[in-house]
């Protein structure tokens, strides 16, 4: 899957399942964790979903604001591990 498709899947998942607001205009470079938009309780959900959707290994401890704070950063990681 190419980077643009991964980003599209991530945006759809995040706005629908995590933000519960499909109309939310989520930008690829918008901070998710450091802004508090995604609360810490949702991080494990995101890690589990990414593992299952893209077949990559992502430990809970990896998902933090230093590593992946945006859709673009998370997509780049998934692409690299696929």
């Amino acid at each position: 899957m190419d980077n643009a498709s991964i980003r599209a899947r991530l945006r759809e998942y995040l706005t629908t399942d995590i933000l519960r607001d499909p109309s939310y205009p989520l930008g690829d470079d918008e901070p998710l964790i450091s802004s508090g938009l995604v609360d810490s309780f949702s991080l494990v959900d995101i890690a589990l979903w990414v593992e299952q959707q893209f077949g990559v290994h992502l430990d809970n401890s990896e998902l933090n604001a230093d590593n992946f704070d945006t859709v673009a950063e998370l997509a780049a990681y998934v692409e690299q591990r696929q």
Partner: protein
Amino acid sequence: MGRTLTGRLAALTGEAPERECLRLLDAAGQPSAVLSRRRFLEGVHGAAEQLRAAGAGPRDLVVLIQRDLLTLVTTFFGASLVGAIPSILPFATEKLDPVRYREAMAALIRVAQPALIATDALVAGDVAALLDAASGPLPRTLTVEPRFVSLVGGLQHEASPEDTALLQHSSGTTGLQKGVALSHRAIFEQLDAYSAALGFTPDDVIVSWLPLYHDMGLIAGFLMPLLTGARLVLMSPFDWVRAPHLLMQAISANRGTFTWLPNFAYNFCAQKIRDRDLEGVDLSSMRAFINCSEPVYDASHRLFAERFEPYGVGLDRLAVCYAMAETVFAVTQTPVGEPAPVDVVDRASLRGENFARPATGDAPAERIVSCGRPIPGMEVRVLGEDRTPLPDRHVGEIAVRSSYMLSEYYRRPDATEAAFCDGWYLTGDLGYMAEGEVYVLGRKKDLLIVGGKNIYPQDLEALASAVEGVHPGRVAVFGVPNPQTGTEDAGLVAEVDTDDEAAQNEIRAAIRRAVAAGSDVSLRHVWLVPRGWLIKTSSGKVARSANRDKLLAEMGE
């Protein structure tokens, strides 16, 4: 043995100085510190020296804003050693809006007048930057570092049992203005009563990730083990929420016997821990997982027991406690080693008549989990609207009375006065009693409990009111129970003028950002409604529960 916080620590250290009392875990679940009683007390003396040098003394309020666990636990007792009154506050996270944090701190400083704010190397810069821009007189700040010194006399202030030992605050601008003041005597009476209810002994091992600024973490997950000679294994809530399996691995590695959790954590652990993270884990040492601090869902217990049965935890290991800061901690407790009783009641009768009639036949029923019976020395009553006691199974406000209560809301005689009625503390919780068991249904007031945290709706409403396009004051925040997560979701409804879809989307996004940045929660639902939609009370205030009911009815939920 000593009946003051540090008097007891010293007595326990004298009895068995080399016995382990505290183990701190890092983000990977590895021990970052393993402390004997003697070593811990040396750390307490090290912190006390620094506090003393910074001028902290008897009856001074010392506010602790610290992220490093070792610094936090030693500073807490260090402040107590010099006779000061410690109060642990949540530290500013990176996401928190500096303006809001400053406002909340300013409110606290105005009411409680702390003498000193103790920080650590991790948060000192943030705290200084936030306070820098605040107006008015400010307390001094001190960056405490972990330091161990040999035990010498001269630091210890001899407290009397009635002296205020600590303050506990709820979070948010509103909560920070009401510090619950607890005496040494009240704390030890609670620990005696609660230990008896649990059959708790110095051989027990508590494993906890709970934050120490919350009563459940402070008392059950910190003071109880350290002051009774049991062992504590402590990790950060920030590490646990990102990796919930760390709790199970820590229980397994340390042969844990007790842990306290808010209800959402049962769902969270059952649904979000990978099999690969439970390899080799054995939870059979546990005497009880104790569900406390938000409404208990029977479904959450069942989900948890199903998931962790293969690891040694069945329903008989899932106990329930009803607790609050105002009684130091526990009010009731179900017996350890037995499944918590479940009362099956008729839904229509409960909702419509405020009467918990036992269900019969096929009528829709609700399964209400008991919080147990009052612990020794505690009395519980259920009061009607006129504040007279109600008979069994009638729903009303829960009132409690015991010898171990708060001394006062710190420097708030008005709030102290309002909280009591004929010597009974009015909890603001709704519930009923049946055959001696206490059943708690929810809050009488509009407080939300999201993931175990108390959230004052007015704090979130103020944040949303500041968003452009929202009518200031025409906002209501309320909780929407979510059986999937086992806790409440925060929902917000706001009046706006525009019906343009793009403009509404932008306002919704702006409300989410403002609330995320300015509070401890993320909104799960944001609804925009036209001007005049919200129901107001006769005094002109937005009626939160009425608006929730109206909205959910319109949504068809």
